[in-house]
């Protein structure tokens, strides 16, 4: 963690914003090189694989800036995979951190595995795989909580376009039809849970970035658009709607901060993502509403953020997670003792 000394996560926000701007109009592999050049792909990966070895909190402003700037690159997945593979598949991790190889994650579905000598044979239907059509490797969940890394061009890997809201980082569906992978490609049980716990913090950061952009756009519109002889922001209904969006935005920001503090654990990480999913949706939908008819046009970018937020919400399975979150809470409380507390 020596790199962290003297550095503050917020200092990465400006670097990330500049890097995102520089990526505009570039192909995905050129973007990878650019982002790697700024150290952003390996922000939390070990120095051995070319990373900066910084804590997860340093990836938060990077991801937020990427999403605020509508970066068309699977940055969240890349940052997580680079670190995930740094011990077991060091060379591949280094190639991902340097931008030479592209990797992504199948967030929905899992693969069933059968052993065949020194190989595993994988079958399954996977979905919500950002930029799979451009990736060299896919990380997929296995039954039992392990994960497998699969070359995207392996025999039996079928990548298909998928319906999805996100225009900026489009999702694909993947079918695995008797895909053979070496045993060494399997990451141990527990890998997936650790991955999703970190992913939840970064998804919250992604939603924060998009929600922040939406509120800024709505605020700008409300201040400049005139109706009935006044700026829209003259009207209490508009002022209060924007104030509620601000409350939601700060709630996401504080929840992320808490999830990364000394008190932060799995509960706080899940809570940060769940709060972001709820407030992020309402902020982006509310920002669209403030724009009136203009909000429904292709050119006003609020819909791009709305699409991304809804996609992130689904990739993190917010609706399933809130049920598990509630059940976990309920299970930890003992029944009331009749003798009195």
């Amino acid at each position: 963690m020596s790199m962290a000394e003297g550095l503050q996560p917020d200092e990465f926000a400006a670097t990330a914003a500049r890097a995102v701007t520089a990526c505009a109009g570039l192909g995905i592999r050129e973007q990878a090189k650019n982002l790697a050049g700024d150290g952003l792909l390996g922000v939390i990966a070990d120095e051995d694989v070319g990373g900066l070895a910084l804590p997860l909190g340093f990836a938060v402003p990077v991801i937020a800036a990427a999403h605020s700037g509508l970066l068309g690159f699977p940055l969240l997945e890349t940052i997580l995979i680079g670190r995930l593979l740094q011990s077991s598949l060091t060379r591949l991790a280094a190639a991902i951190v340097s931008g030479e190889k592209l990797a992504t994650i199948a967030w929905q579905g899992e693969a069933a595995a059968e052993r065949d000598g020194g190989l595993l044979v994988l079958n399954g239907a996977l979905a919500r795989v950002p930029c799979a059509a451009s990736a060299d490797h896919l990380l997929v969940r296995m039954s039992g909580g392990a994960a497998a890394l699969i070359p995207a061009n392996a025999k039996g890997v079928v990548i298909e376009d998928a319906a999805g809201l996100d225009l900026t980082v489009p999702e694909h569906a993947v079918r695995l039809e008797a895909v053979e992978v070496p045993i060494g490609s399997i990451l141990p049980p527990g890998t997936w849970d650790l991955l999703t716990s970190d992913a939840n913090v970064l998804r919250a950061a992604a939603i924060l970035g998009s929600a922040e952009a939406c509120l800024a756009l709505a605020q700008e519109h409300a201040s400049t658009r005139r109706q009935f002889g006044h700026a829209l922001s003259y009207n209490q209904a508009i002022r209060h709607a924007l104030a509620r969006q601000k409350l939601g935005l700060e709630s996401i920001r504080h929840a992320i901060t808490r999830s990364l503090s000394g008190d932060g654990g799995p509960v706080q990480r899940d809570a940060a993502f769940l709060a972001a999913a709820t407030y992020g949706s309402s902020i982006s939908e509310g920002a669209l509403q403030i724009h009136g008819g203009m909000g429904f046009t292709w050119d006003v970018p609020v819909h791009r953020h709305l699409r991304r937020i809804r996609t992130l919400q689904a990739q993190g399975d917010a609706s399933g997670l809130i049920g598990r979150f509630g059940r976990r809470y309920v299970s930890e409380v003992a029944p009331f003792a009749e003798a009195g507390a």
Partner: protein
Amino acid sequence: MSVLQAVSAQSIAGENFVGEAYRDAMHRWLNANLPGSFRSDSAAFASPTLQQSVAWEAAMYRAGLTGITWPQAYGGHGRSLREHLIANQEIGRLAMPESVNSIGKELAGPIILAVGTEEQKRRFLPAILEMRNIWCQGFSEPEAGSDLAGLRTRATRDGDGWRITGQKIWTSGAYRAHRCLVLARTGALEDRHRGLAMFAVPLDAKGVRVRTIKSIDGRESFCEVFFDEVEVAQADAIGAPDEGWAAAIRVLEIERATNRMYRAWRFENELRHLISACKADAALSAMVADRHYAVRLGEVAVEIEVLKAHVETAVEALARGDKIGARGSLAKLYWSESHQRFAALAIELLSQASLPQIQAIKVARQRFEAIYLQARAETIYAGTTEIQLGIIADRILQLSRGK
């Protein structure tokens, strides 16, 4: 007073506990000394009398659990705001009664510390902590609720002192208070924010009349207070005459940002109590295991986590020396609305309990039906939801009002 006989005479206030040791000490003291009958999540609960509450809060002070950040010169414990948060987290984790002197400890006291004279600090502050003086807050008036700048209670010069005439309303706990922190007008009504002054008016002074108002929960806790040519000494004027509005704003910012800092942890105590009651009941235990209620309870739990994040972020900002300013409105708006949603869910769940009702459900219904009703006030007092939204729009977003 018999319920308090168990209160440890041993003070932990003077010990030099640090960090988690401080938390442990607070936790142990509270668990050892809070009477079972004070715990609203207990079958033994019986609402404490005023005398019992006063004795309990005085014991909490001696143990180091109130006056935490106040200077030792004025009876405080001279600790940091972070330690104040730790103690409040432990206070919140137990279902203990609300303070009967929170106005003194969390409004009047901090204001006197900020703008009071040395003599006032020495006279008022230890008496608040020792529970010898209970305070109430005389801001709202019949014609000036949210719009305090329109208040009409007048303070006029009378020799060396002042004479106050007017009426206050929604004054919580005035019937039991010794002093009222009164905001009064020294200038003309048209002056709005200018010419407002603050006074520590003794409620046993000639010309003061207190009338209780019955509230929706059946209690008579808030009051109207009438001032008829009440003589107030200059020594009881808090801050300079034209400082009244600035002091009032400071009070309200403090009130919104830091008062009852334990709320998120108390809400968690309430949620755990609700779930424990449901799990003791045949019908409800099946319901809370079902996805529908698991999701809704999960939503409450997430909101509690977010509220903790708001509080902890505010404490860290204040501890760094930042001014809290309008940011207190974010936390106030958040906790008041989320608590209402939670309370509504609680009574909805408990109303579906099996018959005949078991003791656990009776205890929980008593607590949550009271919370549900009291929570309706939470989006009204300390600045209504609409006022908070206005503050966020004006002062945080700085939205243009221009034509």
